Structures are given as structure tokens and as C-alpha cells.
């Protein structure tokens, strides 16, 4: 009905326009009543030679009511859109562009044609959107708009300019970390840092920035670069592909980055991986990566390329976490609702990190939502958790809070008998605040506490806790130089007490405190050089053990191992140098200075004799603050990449590392009673170096990533222990440790599919790790001074992690892990002694436990994806250890009633179903 009315109207006016056409300027009459854009455009097109261009979705709410007689087209458009947010532009060829918010420039962007044109006639009404002057940096939200960077000039000057800025999530205002910005025509690219900040140097002129971020929709920005300037890129979350596995933010990074052996995983990927009891575990997932093996099923300890578990530096928002596990080691102590992503460095460890031999694992928390209050809650078999986040000052200050607690006592009944009559509890809390002072200054406060308490066989109580707080200040001096200054305090402590026997009632306490100061600078010298430099300093304060009476009747003699202090400092300088488009190198040096500080009494041993009580010559007492001894050594970090073609590169790296803090543990896993020891005149720092070589290839538009890496690694002064060494409350630990050498080598193969319904990765690793103790002064030789396999030497390791998405709401995940059994020391003879059979052990680690195999399966069900509902929920249902294989955690021989028998201990020996419910609000 309405249509016919409109059509008749048009016929009515047709006659009048026909008259108007006879003149040079076509005059149009029209009468619109609540006309839509389509009707409006169609009518005017029919009355003129103009063609209309517009995006219908932007105009769905537009209704035009207008009555005009005999006016030029431009006047009609003016009258229709005046005082609205809509703009029009008419080109000389009668093309009409109607836009919302911004006007289209109808002349060519300056610089598009590089021939200098002196005249710049302003024929069309063009808003100069770079005319922001002191206004904020433009938020670039649109793909097809042209953003001008720097002060506009009529001609593009030759040479380069630097563009810097932030990449943010449009919804929450959160920084997008590790987003890649790639400029196709110059083949250059950068990735955003932990604050979403980037700097790229480009030739002046027009560029298309291709932006890709983890879990974000790929986007691009059109820019004209006149001078140095800033740009904020806002990206949209990729809501439709909640379950798509993307292992790396930067799809081209696999091939193009200079680094080797670096993996970043987003929390979304981590959440897909089935775990025992369905508790998302940010540490378990790294065990699926090549070159990383597990210490054992019930521990979060992991070994990277033949390094022991204490050779990994685990950082949570920059804070060192000494015991990253809950509940004996069954779960990671990181709240999956707060964690944003993790990054593991196995080979190319940036200069700014140091102090550990094998790897750096960086766990980064999300920033709180800067725009709205939101949160989530989850219920699992073991823990309940909640997280709340939101703005304190909108767009400026936000907070994020997360907490978890457990009701896991029931689990203990499923454990081996030794854990019967036990109880356990734990919690962890995160609170992070970020604040943007202005364009150039940001501050970040993060705090974390985790606490565990358990009682074994209801007589001994164990508790341990990590605490950390840090403050970071990020300052941009210019678009090329920025700094991150941070200070923080980390503490790890444990306490064991028992009053089961009143006379022997005791309380044993250990703690380690470290105060950190870091000043990290990044300077983007030009498009070929990015320079990192800075200073790190850690002041350690270790209380190696106090043993005190507990209870009125206790006769325990208080015993204190003297506290230790040390200062570990490092100065570093690194340069990433793009020699050519195909060849890049990254070279750096980190100079470590370690001071062991008083007050302390140090024993002096006779040279070239075993460190035994009889060989102590005398001891020297040092006063407070006195530098007892200093170790100084440079770390070298080198890596290089050569692009063979767009999708294939070869990389090589070499690095050296030093470690000054040692975990004293003669069990294979990290146990809650292990002690840390600082290097001192009698215990040398551990050192290591690694050379690695890799071949990296992408295929099918970067959706398939392949890599092969080989490495060879040497370790020196790795600590091993004499037979029967006592590590706890030992006043002379140097008498019980022996220095060993290590060597590790291997080849790692990885195939990843990052997009599509089926995605995931397959890895295979062949690796060997050997140790050797041949120091005749050590007092005893292990295996006659020959090389022997380390506890975590597992030659073959295979992992498959896959996810198949049926629809946006349903997906299934499958995880398969296989590895050679770890080496063990088996008895070779038996005898009778003290009323029982006893065993005599072979050479160390001469045999192996049975191979390890496990498969896990889970189904992820998302609630509906309607945007406007109060809560979103999801379910995860699955089975851990699908085949129920009884993998050996350990094998051991023990006496019972006078007879020795062999046993195999399995931790998760049957299929374990789990269910997890999450709600987001």
C-alpha cells in the first residue's frame, strides 16, 4: 500500500524534474515522509544522474521527512542531513557517498599519487580528521577509513616515520598482547608488548596495517603516515569461534619472528585441554609442547630440554612464583579465570630475563574491563571460583579480582593408602589494578596470594604460601623510547608442625623473600634496529630453616640455620637488527653480578679435598652487608632468522645462562619441603649454554604451522647429592652436595593447525639428558664417574592435542600423550639384614619404568550466544585417562613383614570423569 503511494508520488514529481533537467543545474523536487535510505536514494537516483553509495546497515534507523521543490541535489542532501550525524559527499562524476559519523574525502588522499601537486583545491566539504591537535589519539575503529598520522602536509616527505600506539579490545578496553601488525608492502611487522603497545617504523606514505590478535577478529587499518605519530587500534573479539585453537597470536610469527623455542598459549586454548577433574591448568598444558616433559602425574614440576624442575623461572605478572602448585602439586596455583595467556621460552630467552638455566614461563593476567562491570563464577569437582572486574574510573582505571577455594578433601580418599586420614585445603586470590594517568604514563598494581594447608595422616600439618605484590610504571618518552620501571616483593614460605608426640612437638619454618627492582627500556632506533636495555636487581633474603618447640611439653631444642642474603643484579643490552627483509638477527648480552652478603659465617675447606667435616680449616664470620664473594659473568643471547621464502625460514640461536639459587631436593618432584639455597663461596652458581637450530614453515594461508628444532645443551655445576644427604636444617649443606655436569640434546617436531573446525597440534620429541659426576674431590663417584641418564631423560615423547568444533556451541577435545618411562634405579641383589630382606641397588638410573600413555576426552557445551542476556554459561564434561591405563608414577621395593616386594605406584590409575560449570555475568 505504502509502495504504491510512493511510486505514485514519484510519477507526480517526474514531470517536474524533467522540466528542471533542461537547465544546466538539474533541479529536483521531492517529498519524503519517513522514507528509508533505500527509498530516499532510489528516488533521487531516479530524478538525477547521481549514483548513491552507502552502507545500509549504518542507516537502518534513518527516516527522512522532507519536502523540497526545485532545488539542486546538493541542497536536498544538505537539507536532509543537516544537524544529523550523517554526511554526504558528491564527486564530480555525480557519485554520492553517504556516511555516518565521518565524511568521505572525494579527492585522492595526498600521497596516494606521489607526484607533488602544488594546488590542493578544496572542492568538497572535507573534514580534516587529523585536525585533532591536542585531542586524544584517534581511536581507529574502522577498517575502510583512512587515518592520517602526524601533521598533514601537502607533500609526503621522503624517509621514514615512526608510528606507535596501542591495540585494545573495543569491548573491555583491555590491551591486546602479542597482536601482530604487519605491513604487507614493506614486509615489516611488529607485535604488541604486554601492554598492547607497539612501535613500527615505516616509510612515510600510505600503508595498510594488517592487525591480528589472539582471539580477536583480524582487521586492518588504512593509514597515511606524514610524520611520527600515534594510533590506537581497537579490535573486536572473535565471538563466533570460542573454541578455535590458536596457538600463536601471530600467524606469521612462526616463520618470521627471530626467536626459536618460544610458545604463547591463550587461556582459551588452555581451557580446551582436558585435565584431571576438569580444573583448567595453565601448567599442565605446557606439557603438551615439544621439549617439555612432566616430572610425574601428581606434580606440576616440568622439565624443559633436559633441565631440572627448579631451572624454570615462573613469573606471574613479573613476580617470581616459587611453588606454582596446589594440593601436593596436583594443580597449578594460577586462577584460569584471571590468566590471559602464558608464554614459554625454551631457547631464545630475552636478555631481560635471567637467573634460571632452562626456561622462562611467563603467566600474564588479564587487565580488568575498563568499560563495564563483569564477572564469572565456576563450579568444579574440586574448586569453586569467582572473578569480578570493572572500571574504577571509566576508560582510565580498572580492577580485576579473582579467588578460588577448594573442598577437595574427598579426593584424598581416592589416593594411595598413605594419604588416608589426611585433609587438605587451599585458596588463591588475585587483585590487579591498572590505571592510565595519561597518554604517556600507565601504572599497574598486581598482587597475589596462594595458600595451601594439608594434614597427612592427621598428625603433621604442612602449609605453604606464595605472596607477591608489584607496582609497574610504564612511561613513553617518545614514540621511539619507552620504559617500564617496576618494583615488587615476592615471598614463599612453608611451615611444618606436629604435636603428635608432645615431647617432640615441633614447628619447622622456611621462607624466601625477594625484593625486585627492574628498569626495562625499549628504544625503536629505526625500522632496522630495536634496542632493549635495562637493569634488573633482586635482593634475596632466605631463612633456610628454623626448628622450634611447639607445645608446653616440647623439649625440642630450637635450631636455626643462619639466614642468607644475596644481591643478584644484571645489566643488559640487546638489539634486534633487520639486516634485510629476509635476514634478521637479535643479539644481546646480559651481564650478571651476584654478591653473597653478610652477616654469615662461612667455612673454609682445605683446597683439593672433599668438603667433609674433617677438611674444614677454619671459618670466617662476615658482618652485615659485607660482600662475602662475588660471581660475575656475561650471558650471551643470540638468534638469527633467514627467510627462504614467504612461508619458510631457518633460524639459529645460542644462549648462555647462569643460576644462583638452587633447589635442594633429592626427590624427583618438587616437594613441599624442599629448600632453596643461594650460591656461596662453597657452592658455585650453575651455568649452562645451548645452541639450537630450527626450520619453520607455514602453509595454507598460515593456518598450518610446522617446525623442526634441534638443540644441544651443556650444564655445569648442577647440584646432586651424596648418598643419604640430609637437606633440611643442614648447617653445612656444601658437605652433602656434589657438582655434576649435564648434557642434553634433542630434536623437536611440531605440526599445528590453527584454524578450521579441526584444530590443534601434534608434537614429537626425541631428547636425551645425561649427567656425570667425576670430580675426585667430591668424596664419592656416581656410577664410577660415567655419564648416566637424568631422572627426566625420556627419549621419545609424543603429544596430540585436538579440538573439533561441530557448531559454535559444541566441541570435543582429545588429548593423547605418550612418553618413554623415566629412568629408575633398580635393585640387583637382595640380602637379609635386621630381621628382613633388604635390597642392594644397581647403578643409578640404569633401568626404566614402563612407558607412559594417557588419553583424555572432553565435550565443551556453550550456552546460547545471544548477546543480550544476563549470563552466559558453559559446561565441560569429560574423562581423564580414558583407557584407564595404570601408568607408573614410580616403582619401588619395600619391606613388609620381613619380605621385600616390588610395587608400582600409579596416581590416576582409572578413567576419571569430571564435570565443570561456568557462568559469566
Amino acid at each position, binding site marked *: 500500500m505504502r509502495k504504491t503511494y510512493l511510486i505514485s508520488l514519484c510519477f507526480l514529481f517526474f514531470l517536474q524534474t524533467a522540466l528542471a533537467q533542461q537547465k544546466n543545474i538539474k533541479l529536483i523536487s521531492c517529498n519524503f515522509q519517513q522514507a528509508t535510505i533505500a527509498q530516499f536514494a532510489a528516488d533521487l537516483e531516479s530524478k538525477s544522474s547521481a549514483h548513491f553509495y552507502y552502507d545500509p546497515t549504518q542507516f537502518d534507523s534513518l527516516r527522512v521527512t522532507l519536502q523540497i521543490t526545485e532545488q539542486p541535489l546538493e541542497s536536498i542532501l544538505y537539507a536532509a542531513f543537516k544537524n544529523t550525524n550523517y554526511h554526504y559527499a558528491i564527486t564530480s562524476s555525480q557519485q554520492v557517498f553517504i556516511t555516518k559519523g565521518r565524511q568521505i574525502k572525494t579527492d585522492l588522499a595526498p600521497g596516494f599519487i606521489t607526484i607533488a601537486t602544488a594546488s590542493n583545491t578544496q572542492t568538497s566539504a572535507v573534514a580534516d580528521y587529523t585536525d585533532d591537535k591536542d585531542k586524544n589519539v584517534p581511536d581507529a575503529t574502522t577498517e575502510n577509513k583512512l587515518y592520517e598520522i602526524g601533521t598533514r602536509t601537502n607533500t609526503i616527505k621522503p624517509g621514514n616515520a615512526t608510528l606507535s600506539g596501542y591495540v585494545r579490545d573495543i569491548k573491555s578496553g583491555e590491551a591486546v598482547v602479542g597482536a601482530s601488525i604487519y605491513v604487507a608492502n614493506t614486509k615489516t611487522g611488529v607485535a604488541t608488548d604486554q601492554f598492547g603497545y607497539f612501535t613500527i617504523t615505516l616509510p612515510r606514505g600510505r600503508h595498510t596495517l594488517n592487525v591480528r590478535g589472539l582471539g580477536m577478529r583480524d582487521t586492518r587499518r588504512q593509514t597515511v603516515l606524514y610524520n611520527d605519530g600515534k594510533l590506537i587500534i581497537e579490535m573486536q573479539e572473535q565471538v563466533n569461534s570460542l573454541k578455535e585453537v590458536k596457538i600463536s597470536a601471530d600467524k606469521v610469527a612462526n616463520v618470521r619472528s627471530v626467536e626459536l623455542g618460544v610458545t604463547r598459549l591463550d587461556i582459551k586454548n588452555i581451557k580446551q585441554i582436558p585435565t584431571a577433574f576438569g580444573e583448567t591448568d595453565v601448567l599442565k598444558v605446557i606439557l603438551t609442547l615439544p621439549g617439555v616433559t612432566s616430572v610425574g602425574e601428581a606434580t606440576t614440576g616440568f622439565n624443559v630440554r633436559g633441565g631440572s624442575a627448579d631451572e624454570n623461572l615462573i613469573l606471574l605478572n613479573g613476580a617470581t612464583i616459587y611453588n606454582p602448585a596446589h594440593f601436593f602439586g596436583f594443580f597449578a596455583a594460577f586462577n584460569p579465570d584471571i590468566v590471559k595467556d602464558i608464554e614459554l621460552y625454551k631457547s631464545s630467552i630475552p636478555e631481560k630475563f635471567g637467573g634460571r638455566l632452562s626456561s622462562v614461563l611467563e603467566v600474564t593476567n588479564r587487565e580488568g574491563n575498563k568499560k563495564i562491570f563483569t564477572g564469572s563464577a565456576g563450579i568444579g569437582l574440586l574448586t569453586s571460583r569467582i572473578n569480578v572486574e570493572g572500571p574504577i574510573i571509566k576508560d582510565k582505571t580498572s580492577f580485576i579480582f579473582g579467588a578460588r577455594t577448594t573442598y577437595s578433601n574427598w579426593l584424598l580418599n581416592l589416593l594411595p*593408602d*598413605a594419604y588416608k586420614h589426611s585433609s587438605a585445603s587451599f585458596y588463591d586470590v588475585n587483585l590487579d589494578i591498572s590505571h592510565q594517568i595519561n597518554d604517556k604514563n600507565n601504572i599497574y598494581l598486581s598482587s597475589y596470594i596462594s595458600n595451601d594447608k594439608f594434614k597427612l595422616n592427621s598428625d603433621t600439618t604442612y602449609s605453604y604460601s606464595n605472596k607477591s605484590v608489584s607496582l609497574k610504571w610504564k612511561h613513553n618518552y617518545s614514540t621511539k623510547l619507552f620504559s617500564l620501571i617496576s618494583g615488587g616483593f615476592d615471598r614463599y614460605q612453608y611451615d611444618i608442625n606436629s604435636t603428635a608426640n608432645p615431647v617432640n612437638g615441633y614447628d619447622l619454618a622456611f621462607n624466601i623473600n625477594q625484593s625486585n627492582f627492574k628498569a626495562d627500556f625499549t628504544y625503536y632506533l629505526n625500522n632496522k634496529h630495536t634496542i632493549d636495555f635495562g637493569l634488573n636487581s633482586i635482593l634475596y633474603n632466605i631463612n633456610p630453616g628454623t626448628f622450634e618447640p611447639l607445645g608446653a611439653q616440647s623439649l625440642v631444642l630450637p635450631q636455626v640455620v643462619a639466614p642468607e642474603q644475596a644481591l643478584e643484579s644484571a645489566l643488559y643490552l640487546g638489539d634486534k637488527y633487520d639486516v634485510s627483509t629476509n635476514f634478521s638477527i637479535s643479539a644481546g648480552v646480559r651481564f650478571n653480578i651476584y654478591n653473597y652478603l653478610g652477616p654469615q659465617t662461612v667455612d673454609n675447606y682445605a683446597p683439593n679435598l672433599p668438603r667433609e667435616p674433617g677438611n674444614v680449616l677454619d671459618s670466617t664470620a662476615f658482618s652485615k652487608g659485607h660482600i662475602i664473594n662475588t660471581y660475575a659473568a656475561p650471558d650471551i643471547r643470540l638468534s638469527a632468522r633467514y627467510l627462504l621464502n614467504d612461508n619458510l625460514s631457518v633460524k639459529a640461536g645460542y644462549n648462555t645462562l647462569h643460576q644462583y639459587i638452587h633447589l635442594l631436593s633429592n626427590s*624427583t618432584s618438587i616437594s613441599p619441603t624442599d629448600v632453596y639455597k643461594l650460591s656461596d663461596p662453597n657452592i658455585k652458581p650453575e651455568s649452562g649454554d645451548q645452541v639450537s637450530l630450527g626450520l619453520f614453515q607455514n602453509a595454507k594461508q598460515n593456518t598450518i604451522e610446522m617446525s623442526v628444532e634441534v638443540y644441544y645443551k651443556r650444564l655445569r655445576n648442577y647440584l646432586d647429592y651424596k*648418598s*643419604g644427604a640430609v637437606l633440611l636444617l643442614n648447617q653445612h649443606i656444601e658437605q652433602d652436595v656434589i657438582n655434576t655436569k649435564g648434557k642434553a640434546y634433542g630434536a623437536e617436531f611440531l605440526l599445528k593447525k590453527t584454524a578450521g573446525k579441526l584444530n590443534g597440534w601434534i608434537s614429537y620429541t626425541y631428547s636425551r639428558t645425561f649427567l656425570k659426576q667425576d670430580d675426585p674431590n667430591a668424596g664419592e663417584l656416581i656410577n664410577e664417574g660415567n655419564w648416566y641418564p637424568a631422572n627426566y631423560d625420556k627419549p621419545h615423547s609424543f603429544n596430540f592435542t585436538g579440538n573439533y568444533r561441530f557448531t559454535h556451541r559444541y566441541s570435543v577435545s582429545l588429548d593423547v600423550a605418550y612418553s618413554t618411562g623415566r629412568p629408575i634405579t633398580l635393585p640387583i641383589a637382595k640380602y637379609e*639384614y635386621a630381621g628382613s*630382606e633388604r635390597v642392594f641397588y644397581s647403578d643409578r638410573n640404569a633401568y626404566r619404568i614402563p612407558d607412559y600413555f594417557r588419553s583424555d576426552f572432553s565435550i565443551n557445551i556453550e550456552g546460547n550466544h545471544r548477546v543480550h542476556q544476563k549470563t552466559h554459561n558453559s559446561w565441560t564434561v569429560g574423562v581423564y585417562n580414558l583407557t584407564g591405563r595404570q601408568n*607408573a608414577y614410580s616403582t*619401588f621395593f619395600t619391606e613388609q613383614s620381613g619380605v621385600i616386594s616390588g610395587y608400582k605406584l600409579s596416581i590416576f*590409575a582409572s578413567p576419571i570423569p569430571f564435570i565443570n560449570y561456568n557462568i559469566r555475568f
Partner: protein
Amino acid sequence: MGCKKPYNPPPVAGDGSYLVVEGVINSGADSTIIKLSRTVNISSKITTNPVSGATLTVESDQNAIYPLTEITAGKYGAPGLNLDASHQYRLRIKTLDDKQYLSDFVPVNITPPIDSVGYNIVSVPDTGLQIYVNTHNSNSSTRYYRWEYSETWRFHAAYFSLFISNGSSIVERQPNQWRFFCFASDSSSDIVLASSAKLQNNIIYQNPLTVISSTSEKVELQYSMLLREYALTPDAYTFWTNLKKNTEQLGSIFDAEPSQIKGNIHNVNNPNEPVIGYISACTVQSKRIFISRNNLPDLWKPAYPYTCQIDSDGSQGPGFLIPQPNDFVPMSGSTYTSSICADCTLRGTQTVPPYWIY
């Protein structure tokens, strides 16, 4: 979910068999007993492999020599040596294949008397009786202790058989043919150690020795324990702690790795030859205690270690109980059961130990 299963490793054969020396140089009036044996392969059926024909002597640092004589195969002894505690002693072993072994010189530890042996009723991990020892040493020189014990207990068979077959007919048992009450004994197989090194006073308070389950036959009538106490040097204590860790305390999640156990006995000509054992010298203290059923909770019920039932030919009469196996075919009117259920002498002895006090 977690589990502990028997495990048989691949057959491993050691390339040798090593000398094992066990015993203590008793510096007091009691006899010194040293046992010599050799290790056997882990898969071997036998575990005892005694070494006979060796010559053993205890030597002092003043060159005094006290010979030992072989009592039974591999067991060598000497009557009370009454050694001077101000000197150090060692053991010399000369085996038949002409190898010489020497232990390190060790001082004589004076073991303090045992103060008391008592018990607690415990409920964890299972309900039972935990027996403990209290001791102290006013002379603070020795702070490390080891205990060994022998247990003896009186128990009864499942059924009291009043009849027996004499080969042709069933006759009533004479009291000397009753097989209901017996004595059984055992000796400690776990290593029991304690130290007061971390305490202000040299006191050992309620150090657990063993736990007897409430269902054990050991506590169904009367139980006795003879406890022997040995004072140790710190070095000897380390040896025993390692031996215990390596052979008894494995199987937890945070196990220490098994390590070589270093004793103090060496082959004179080949110091690298492993020799298992540690020779200490000390006086020995002992104490015997009795625990009667009357002092234990009434609800405790012994679990008979065998499944027992009474069979009959269908015409059961009272008191007719005959143990099997028996060549006699049960006659009409008799009831019978397996001999393990009616004859306690299959598992113990009816000889009353000389020290027994009812």
C-alpha cells in the same frame, strides 16, 4: 583412583654377590653375635646365603684380639667380651677365599637403661595397640638409639578339639593332647631408630616401636615383648637411617631416590668392593613387658587367619571335633574341621617360655 600394584621388574642380575656383615660388638657381659652372608640375585628363591668357615676377630686399638667362633653356618659368636669402653674396636674378617675385610674403628657406646615400654590405643591408620619406648640418658654422650625386639604371644586355635583318632577309633584327648592354647613368637623386621639430638634433654619419649592391629591374634590373650636397646654413634645412625629409607620408606609421591648405602666395612685390598653392613660397639640394654587381654578394649575381636568351618556327616553331636587331615574316615556322629583350625601347634608351640608370667 590411585593404586599400588605388585611390580616385577625385568630380570636383573647383578654381576656379583656382595658380603653382608650384621651384628654388634657387645662390649658388655652378653655374647657378641656376628652374621656373615652374601647377597643373592633379586629373583632368587632363597634369601639367606650364609658364609661359613671365615675367621672373625674383634680387635682393639691396643692390639688386643678377641676371636669369634662359628656357632651355626654363617653365625659367629663370642661370650661376654667385657671390653674397656675407653678404647676403640673393630672387626676383622678373613673369608675362606682368603679375602680380608676390616671395619673402621668405632668407640664403645654405653647404652642407657630402658625407662619403660608402654602402649597407647590408637585409631589411625587402623585401630590397634601402639607400643612405645621411653628412655633417657643422663650421660649426654649418646643421643642416637636403635631398638630390636622379640614378640611372644599366647593364642588359641579356632576350635577346641576334644577327640582324636587313634587310627582305628575315636578317643577322647588327654590334656597333654590338647592343641588349643599355644605360644608364637616373632622378631622385629622394621628398623626402629630415634634421636634426641634435636631436643634440649637427652630424652626419648614414647618412641613408637610397632603397631598391633586390634584384630591380631597377638593381643587375643597375652602378649610379651623383649626390647633390646643399642646406643649408636652419629655415623651409625646415618647408616641405619639410610638403610631404612632405602628399604622401608619408599612409595610416597615425594620419595627420595634410592641411594647406595655406605657401611663401615671394607675389603682391605679392594676398597671399591661393596660390603654391606655397619659394625658398632656398645653395651646392650633390654626390658621385657607383658600386655594382658584384660587391659584392652572389650570390643576387640581377633580375626582368625584361616577360614574355618565345622563339617559333619549330618548327624552332628556335641563336642565331637576331630582335626583333618586324618587317615580316619569320620564316623557317624562326629564333627570335624581342618587341622589348622583345631591344632595350634601347626603355628606355634605349647612349650611355655621360661620367662612367661601369666
